[in-house]
């Protein structure tokens, strides 16, 4: 059972690889490949340079403004299906045509072809000259049961701009997955986009066929919109992998350790790419540990390796031969990995150490709605002294937990932010408002049909009412009410040991359990029926649905697929992996991308 699940996950890569191979073999002869730089990392997960070479790819360039010098008459562009990049490609091709070159041009779009792009190609006059291919890659398996579609722009497109053109691609990948595993009997969707994806998956089953397997290897799937749980994105994680992502940024499972961690001795600023995988024994041990526990582990490991080396010194010759043949290589690899992680740890401490404690304390207070004045002060201080990403994160968290800031509070923070980061960020605040992460929703502008004036006065009134209400003692916001209902604030007692966690809330230092993790937890323990999950959705203002097939029996599901529309965080992944360990259920975690608080804010700015 387990192994078949694993090999199916492996099959995803092979299918993606063959899809690409199919396109490249249809372009005969030697060709130059021009890749959008953001596609490089995900592509490395699917295939390697030697594979591309075997398919007739000669030179590989990055798509840049400056241009490049292709040697072969076949140009193959590989880009995300996004209008701006497509325009740039059109410009390059047009420029080349004007120089009287007779090359043949191909564009491969990831993940799908778009009407808007077709229109652009037509308008630019390159329709017919350019051959268009699409490369709908499958979910990319990053490590273990973690998969990502690697569509980093999707969050902004959906939640900020309301652009749904990538939803079919997401639906397609979920259809593929169910084609491999068998149709999943119980599907829960939370949020408007998840619902639509579910609808599209049904259409795909009708039109493209469904697997004839009687039972699925996954018993329950949850599709969740990111806006169901923003708190898990905004809070600062305490796990090693979470902090690594926070400080260095992990892209497609590789982390680039820059001079902060790697070149400290000679001061060179060369970057070292490091593949994070569970095959690396040390990383596997520390990835989900509480950060304070990581360093002790690493130092004990270092001592172990040291004694191992010592032992080799007193070896007899025949022993030595065996040692060099088998263990030495393993040991050197381990030593290298150890050096990376120690370097990374030091950099994390340097970057976050001075404010980690106070930040964590404030976050906890904000979550539970305590010491509002102090929290606001802390945020203001953050605006004056820290970077723009971390200050906006705090602002979002404040707004989220209080169901929106009052207009005055929002104005104070907004003005300070614009002063330190530039007036052009006015648009950022408009985006935050659209996401419901700034002022109270009644003052927002998401309802386009209401005339402006009326809307604004209503907003003012609501702001005033809210101000009065907020002065009343012990006001519980909708966020806190929801959190208490779902038991998202763990009870911290004497036994609550962050180093040997018994509760998924440890990923945020014991202050908050990620919503979806708690849902899965309750489903496993049968404390919550799927129908009750459905009802929860309406209390946070999202729509939800349950879909059951005839095969679904009411026993508690034992294997899950959790899919986040808009991205999943490393903290959530760690929480799910702990849940796996505690309950024995198998949980696959997937998302349109891997996200963290900083990337979240960046996509709004």
């Amino acid at each position: 059972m387990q192994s078949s699940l694993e090999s199916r996950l492996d099959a995803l890569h092979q299918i993606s690889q063959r899809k690409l191979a199919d396109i490249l073999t249809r372009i005969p002869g030697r060709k130059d490949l021009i890749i959008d730089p953001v596609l490089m990392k995900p592509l490395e997960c699917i295939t390697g340079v030697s594979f591309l070479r075997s398919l007739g790819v000669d030179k590989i360039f990055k798509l840049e403004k400056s241009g490049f010098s292709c040697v072969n008459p076949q140009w193959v562009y590989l880009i995300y299906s996004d209008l701006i990049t497509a325009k740039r490609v059109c410009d390059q091709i047009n420029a080349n045509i004007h120089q009287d070159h007779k090359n043949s041009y191909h564009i491969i779009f990831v993940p799908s072809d778009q009407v808007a792009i077709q229109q652009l190609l037509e308008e630019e006059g390159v329709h017919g000259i350019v051959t268009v291919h699409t490369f709908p890659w499958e979910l990319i398996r990053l490590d273990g049961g973690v998969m990502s579609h690697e569509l980093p722009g999707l969050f902004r497109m959906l939640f900020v701009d309301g652009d749904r053109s990538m939803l079919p691609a997401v639906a397609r990948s979920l259809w593929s997955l169910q084609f491999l595993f068998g149709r999943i009997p119980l599907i829960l969707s939370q949020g408007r986009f998840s619902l639509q994806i579910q609808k599209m998956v049904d259409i795909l089953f009708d039109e493209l066929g469904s697997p004839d397997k009687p039972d699925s290897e996954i018993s329950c799937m949850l599709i969740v919109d990111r806006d169901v749980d923003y708190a898990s994105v905004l809070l600062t994680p305490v796990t090693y992998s979470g902090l690594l992502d926070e400080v260095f940024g992990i892209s497609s499972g590789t982390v680039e350790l820059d001079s902060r961690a790697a070149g400290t001795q000679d001061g060179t600023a060369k970057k070292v790419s490091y593949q994070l995988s569970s095959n690396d024994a040390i990383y596997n041990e520390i990835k989900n540990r509480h950060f304070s526990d990581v360093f002790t582990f690493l130092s004990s490991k270092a001592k172990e390796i040291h004694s191992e080396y010592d032992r080799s010194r007193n070896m007899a010759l025949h022993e030595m031969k065996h040692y060099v043949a088998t263990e030495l290589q393993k040991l050197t690899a381990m030593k290298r990995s150890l050096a990376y992680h120690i370097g990374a740890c030091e950099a994390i401490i340097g970057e976050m150490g001075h404010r980690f404690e106070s930040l964590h304390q404030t976050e906890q207070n904000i979550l539970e709605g305590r010491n509002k004045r102090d929290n606001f002060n802390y945020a203001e201080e953050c605006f004056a002294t820290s970077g723009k990403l971390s200050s906006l994160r705090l602002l979002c968290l404040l707004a989220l937990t209080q169901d929106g800031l009052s207009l005055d509070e929002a104005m104070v923070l907004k003005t300070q932010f614009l002063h330190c980061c530039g007036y052009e960020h006015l648009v950022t605040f408009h985006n935050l408002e659209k996401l419901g992460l700034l002022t109270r929703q009644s003052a927002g502008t998401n309802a386009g049909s209401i005339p402006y004036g009326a809307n604004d006065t209503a907003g003012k009134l609501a702001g005033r009412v809210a101000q009065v209400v907020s002065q009343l003692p012990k006001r519980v916001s909708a966020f806190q009410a929801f959190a208490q209902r779902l038991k998202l604030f763990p009870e911290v007692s004497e036994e609550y040991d962050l180093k040997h966690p018994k509760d998924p809330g440890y990923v945020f230092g014991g202050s908050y359990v990620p919503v979806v993790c708690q849902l899965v937890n309750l489903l496993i323990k049968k404390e919550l029926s799927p129908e009750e999950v459905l009802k929860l959705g309406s209390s946070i203002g999202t729509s939800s649905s349950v879909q059951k097939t005839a095969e679904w029996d009411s026993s508690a599901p034992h294997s899950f697929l959790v899919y986040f529309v808009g991205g999943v965080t490393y903290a959530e992944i760690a929480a799910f992996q702990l849940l796996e360990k505690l309950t024995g259920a198998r949980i696959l975690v997937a998302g349109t991308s891997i996200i963290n608080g900083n990337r979240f804010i960046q996509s709004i700015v």
Partner: protein
Amino acid sequence: MLVKQKRSALRMMNLGVSCVEYQKVELQGCRRESEKEWESIAPTSVQTRCLDHYPERLYQIHLRQQQDLYKPLFQKRVCFANRWVPPPVNDTVAKILLGYPYSLELYRSLKSKTELLDAAIAVGDGNAILAVVLFLVRTLKKNLVYQLLRTRPEAVAQYCQYLAIRLRVHELTDLLEMLGDNREASMKQFQLAVCGTMNPQRRLQKLQACFKNHFSLTDNKDRLLIENYIKLLDILILEWQLSMAGADAEIAKALVGQPVLSSLAYTCQHHWSEPKGSISAPLTLSQQQGVSDRQFQWTVLTVRASLHSWDDIEGLFITKSWLGGKKLKAAVSMEQVVMQLHAHGAPVDVLVKYLELIDNVDKRVGLAQKLQCHKAVVNVFVAKRDRQALISYKANLHPQSEDYFYAENSLRVSTTKWKN
């Protein structure tokens, strides 16, 4: 011929994965004509090392879809209909979703157009929604398009995003204003005026126009911010660049694209001593832009500390009242101040002075120990009249160091009434 090509293509794709016996598979609803071809492809195809045929089938479906082999499916459905009757809207939307060729030209009645739009929205495929909206825009008069869009926010968002990326500003503003979403319209205009214009003078002009058109209403909450932005650009472009010569003018040019605090930092560095009221004095700029005390103090602190002018910083935080007493007026927490001073290499004496201003004694001791400011620690113990603690702390100090003597002297002072 086609089959041959395909077969060779498939052979080339052999990835060297170990094989499992191929199982014949049938796909729902897509047999008939294509079946023969399907079988002819299958035996040569590669298999994955997975336990069964599902990965292979999945891949084959992809391949066929790419090569338009699915046509029979739709032809079957459509063939009964008259060629001039539009196909069911759901079929067309499904075709767009799956990436098959489709045509919208037959949807000529307003009713069929409306149904088509609703079907696309119901499925939720943004690509299909956009395709339909573009078709509507092409074939309907403006009023009717707006009428249709008014009650369908999903379609509006999709179309607006398209217009914004294609930089069709006029159409976009018209649409948004027609729909009554003035705020969105004003934001798009602002974005374009600011982010889309590199030339400072042009940017200022565009911003002024944008202000006049969208932000001049008195109840607009962003009005003040935009006004301040215009003032800032005014100062940088018109006043500073003209009044300052040479290198300063160059810097002023560079500051145009930067936030207020950068300009403030610049004035703190180069125009610190200018009298109040001069256009380039820090305080003038700060007041004119409404910079908060906290940010003002932090900026001044950072700049003056980097120049090691510790006296200026004292003037910033400590005001002398008329009776000669000292009064603290810090908007930033003193811990932050001390840390920042330390980061810029302030001497111990200066640090001790600010450490004394931290109200919370425990925090003060903690920070003082961390920064090796022993004098501040000693002072705390003296104030607490805690002799034992002082003696044990002295034991940890470097003998014969200045701090050591300071601690010893404190112990020796006879006026202190020790409690232990």
